[in-house]
């Protein structure tokens, strides 16, 4: 019956109007735009505040991984393919941990300081290699966290293999959840706004064609360094937050998991969308929590998801959903 028909996709009228002109005429149109943004915000908040304590911790971990994924996606949108989110994460974590452990600074000082200083240190470490692109940058970022782990192990500095323990915790779980949720949504919507602005346009153009961007008289290395600072600051914040949440920092903060999961989440959610990786993280982390009894087999599972998603489903969930939401499908008769 269907052979004389073909599927036709048409963008909804509201979508066409709301894409660049903000002259919405009705509550219906406003609701159309707000609905996909409000549902996850409200939904996650409700879930986060009313779960039992154990699952509250899971939500916090999920939010941290979601931020790492969003930051990975931001960096990849700037043409900086990072395989070492653990580097930024670990540096943030160690900065916060040592500030708290050696200088006894309170938590509301260490986290902001670790965010900025951690981002700065990460940028400085990667500054010599910022001229590299694509796969070469990826190789360097892959080996850096592994080597830093060895460095800590070898020199026994910053607590060595034991790590730093007994750091100051958050006042209570409510503050913790509110803080991380606010930070996560701020990171997501902030980066989306940033990418869409004229400033963000330069980042995207560096990814698409860096030669042409250079030819337009833009110093791409300066912009790459700025992108790196923004991206790594977000990761450093996650590291600092996690440090205080677990009251511990040590060698595990450079673990492969912190580098791999953001990439897996982005591959599931859709690379280049920022919201997609967040969705991917909210699928993967709770799922891996359910699979906790399998131990390290979880990492095998991430690896499989990575390979399958990259090869078979290169588009990602977010693209699929946004197509379903923004476009109408109908069967049109073939002439």
């Amino acid at each position: 019956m269907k052979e004389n028909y073909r599927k036709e996709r048409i963008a909804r009228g509201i979508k066409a109007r709301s894409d660049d002109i903000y002259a919405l005429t009705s509550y219906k149109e406003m609701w159309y735009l707000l609905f996909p943004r409000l549902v996850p915000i409200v939904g996650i908040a409700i879930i986060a505040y009313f779960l039992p304590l154990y699952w509250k911790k899971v939500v916090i971990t999920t939010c941290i991984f979601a931020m790492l994924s969003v930051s990975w996606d931001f960096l990849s949108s700037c043409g900086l393919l990072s395989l070492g989110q653990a580097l930024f994460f670990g540096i943030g974590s160690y900065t916060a941990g040592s500030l708290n452990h050696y200088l006894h600074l309170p938590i509301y000082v260490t986290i902001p300081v670790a965010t900025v200083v951690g981002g700065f240190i990460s940028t400085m470490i990667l500054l010599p290699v910022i001229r590299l692109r694509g796969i070469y940058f990826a190789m360097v970022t892959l080996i850096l966290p592994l080597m830093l782990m060895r460095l800590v192990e070898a020199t026994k500095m910053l607590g060595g293999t034991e790590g730093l323990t007994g750091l100051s915790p958050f006042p209570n779980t409510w503050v913790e959840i509110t803080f991380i949720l606010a930070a996560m949504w701020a990171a997501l919507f902030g980066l989306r706004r940033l990418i869409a602005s004229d400033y963000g346009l330069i980042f995207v153009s560096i990814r698409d064609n860096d030669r042409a961007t250079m030819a337009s008289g833009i110093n791409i290395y300066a912009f790459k360094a700025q992108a790196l600072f923004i991206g790594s600051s977000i990761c450093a914040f996650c590291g600092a937050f996690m440090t205080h949440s677990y009251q511990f920092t040590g060698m595990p903060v450079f673990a492969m998991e912190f580098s791999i999961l953001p990439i897996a989440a982005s591959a599931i959610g859709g690379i280049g969308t920022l919201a997609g990786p967040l969705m991917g993280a909210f699928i993967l982390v709770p799922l891996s929590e359910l699979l906790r009894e399998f131990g390290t087999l979880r990492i095998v599972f991430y690896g499989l998801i990575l390979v399958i998603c990259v090869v078979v489903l290169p588009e990602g969930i977010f693209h699929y959903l946004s197509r379903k939401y923004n476009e109408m499908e109908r069967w049109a008769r073939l002439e």
Partner: protein
Amino acid sequence: MLVYGLINSTVLALMALGFNLTFGISGVANFAYGAIYVVAGFLTWTFINELNLPYALSAVLTIVLIGIFGVLIYRFIIKRIRGLVISEVIATLGISIVILEFLRYFGFIGFKYSLPVFINGSVEILGAFVDIQRLLIVGFVILLIAALYMFTHYTKVGLAFRGIAQEEHTSLSLGINPDRIAGLSMGMGSALGAFAAIVILPLGTITVDSGYDVLINALSVCIVGGLGSTFGVILASFIIGYAQTITATYVSSHWTMIVSLIAILIILAIKPSGLLGHQKELEERV
């Protein structure tokens, strides 16, 4: 110390050659290389201890099987995403993690997993006692480099390898199938990894973590030497190898990893294409 430095360097060169071959020819960075190295070790162990095959036969079998495995990875996974750098990296890294963590989960850990050395004993050279196995490694590396040079310069397939490395579209018009050749180069790179594993692993036990170590070492040597340049790899492995040995002797063996890290950062800051990278690679990298 001179001798130990030489041996350390040749071990590094041996680890890096397979990775470098695949990358230099097909442009695919095979992050699964470390995993392949470990799998080769366990495979040989299984052939010897479970199936009671003679050592030489099991070594050859392993190299062939791993080569086929590499071709299969290319054929079913990498071929579909060739040219998309992000996807290539993610997919090969994914494969590597799947293999290594799978092995770790099934408990392939322990002292019983070690390969026998080829010839026992040691000799004295320049006042240092050296195992014959280590000397054999040096010999094998020299042979291997000579063989690779002959292969890429005087055989038809070898010339096709260099053809697609230089200009893929032109070689297509001359009747070379880039996909087939790239698959072959992936297989050969993996086989070289297996060879490295069989030669190097008798010096210690086979551990899952050595997969990551091999990948790190291969990557750092290739980055310093200039990716895709065989002589760059040899030069770089000598620099890093001697630097590591000197640090281990005079400072502390804990700092050896840091030496390669610093070497990478310095080289990349001064000469982003690596020591012997060509102009073409410079274009790609910077």
